[in-house]
């Protein structure tokens, strides 16, 4: 089965292409669009992007493998990222990681057996003044306390 974008996303792609003087420049935004629909970037997605943007598949694969946010393997329905870089570590990121692992019953890098949540650590998310924090999908949760972490994860897994 070959990958294809929904018609709504095809329209978004048209808008994307009009922003840049080259098709290649749409590569990263298009990969994001595909990943939103497909959960992760597999070889079919890579081929789709390569064909649509007149790029060698190797170029697209090179881009996919470079950037942290492109998932080359399936991830959970939700991704929980805990920032672990120094300013957050100074304010308890280590404890947040431990709490998430315990509550979700998985280690960092793993996905819950029901496929709902993948737990990952992130490097600095520009939230240093409101540390510690987590990013759940597209949302930031800052100034975390153990109670808030529990609340967020309970909602996520229910």
């Amino acid at each position, binding site marked *: 089965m070959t990958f294809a974008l929904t018609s709504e996303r095809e329209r978004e792609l048209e808008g994307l292409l009009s922003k840049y*003087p080259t098709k290649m420049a749409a590569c990263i935004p298009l990969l994001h669009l595909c990943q939103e629909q497909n959960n992760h970037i597999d070889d079919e997605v890579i081929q789709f992007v390569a064909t649509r943007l007149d790029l060698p598949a190797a170029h697209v694969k090179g881009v996919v493998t470079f950037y942290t946010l492109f998932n080359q393997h399936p991830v959970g329905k939700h991704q929980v990222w805990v920032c672990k*870089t*120094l300013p957050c570590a*100074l304010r308890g990121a280590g404890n947040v990681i431990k709490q998430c692992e315990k509550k979700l019953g998985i280690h960092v890098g793993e996905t819950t057996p029901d496929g709902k949540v993948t737990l990952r650590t992130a490097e600095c998310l*520009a939230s*240093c003044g409101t540390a510690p924090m987590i*990013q759940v999908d*597209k949302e930031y949760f800052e100034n975390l306390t153990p109670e808030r972490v529990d609340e967020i994860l309970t909602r996520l897994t229910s």
Partner: protein
Amino acid sequence: MLTRSEFLTKVYAVEKGWSLDAYERAQTELFGPAPGGDSGGYRAARKVLGMAQADVVAEAKKANIRGRGGAGFPMGVKWSFMKPHPTKPAYLVINADEGEPGTHKDRTIMERNPHAVVEGCIIGCFGIGAHVAYIYVRDELHLSKARLEGAIAEAKAKGYLGKTPFGRDYPVEVYVHTGAGAYICGEETSLLNSLEGRRGEPRLKPPFPAQAGAFGCPTTVNNLETIAAVPTAFNLGCEEFSKLSALHKLGDGGVRLYGLNGHVKKPGVHELHVGVTLRELIYDLGGGVLGDRELLALIPGGSSTPVLKPDELVSAPDEKSPMHEWHGKSVMDIPLGVDTMRAAGTMLGTCCVTVLAVGTCPVLAMQNLMSFYHHESCGQCTPCREGSAWLDRIVDKILDGEASMEELDSLHDIANNIMGNTICAFGEGTAMPALGFLKKFRKDFEAYVRGERKRADATLLVE
């Protein structure tokens, strides 16, 4: 000298302060009624589009806006590098890839005052002869992207962007472009490669972006806070803006955002006249160190800036040096600026201070950062790719009590082998903090090697 300002942050406290309405009202409150009785929106951009391009650049230089992304290069001078090309268009690219550990200020502008960015882009485009600006925002800052898009749409609807902004025959379009999770894309040439749809690997300079930047065209890359300062500068008069700073005579002008994080009672972001001291920042604005502990050390402006201990003094014995007036002073009491921090043996960097209280293990702190650089190295240059990995692994080994004194010493060689041997400054960004921690906390590293201290007893937490 601690003096607050609210040119950028006035709308922060206003409900829906990110809207064009709120921006226009704030501009009127800050600068008086708009000339000509219009709504006052984007009045600086409106004025600039009626000026001669060369005059705009000359004016911009007077503002003495030092690049607020970390390098502190004078913005006006960078604009003056742009020369018209017979066939290629020029581009303005805004670096909003805020990823330097300890940096959390650009985000506040995008989320709470995106119009300052958009208006700054219009002025910047005109100043450098560009018609298109790309704001490269790191992907994780979804709210920032949404607010910027909203501001662009509002500005377009009002006729401030498009084919004839303010009725002038000078088309300007501003686009938001997203990254995909790579700290290195904050480096300007890596950012340009990423914008073009490539792996974010930095390029050799020369050629500089002004010669060959985005899509092979003349390009200026400005940090987001830098461009957001431009409307304020032009509204006040650029020289007036510069004079707000205590370091105006050093060419470090205006007001800027100062951040505070780590072991401080009141972390946050403050808009201040350039020239506040570390002591004022940490103790007056920040409420002091957590638990009223002693200050162990601080990182002045993002992890790539060498760590400072509070008992350090400025060394500037040469009477002819502009830094001489601070010779022998405590680093805690000198005005925080680009050049003064260099005289203190470190860098102002992103101007967001990370505070470490006594009780923090500096070896653990350094390892956290080495792990960061190891992860984020793009891999192009052998000294950095291999060196950042070795720094991480060896410090880890030291913490596990399994390293020898020779291995501790080898960290110096590894760091020094990275310095100056890489395509981009990420190498220095990894090596300089490593050398800083090693030099200033040597005894702590030795304690681990001798088995006198164990990782299990070390902490980064103080409460």
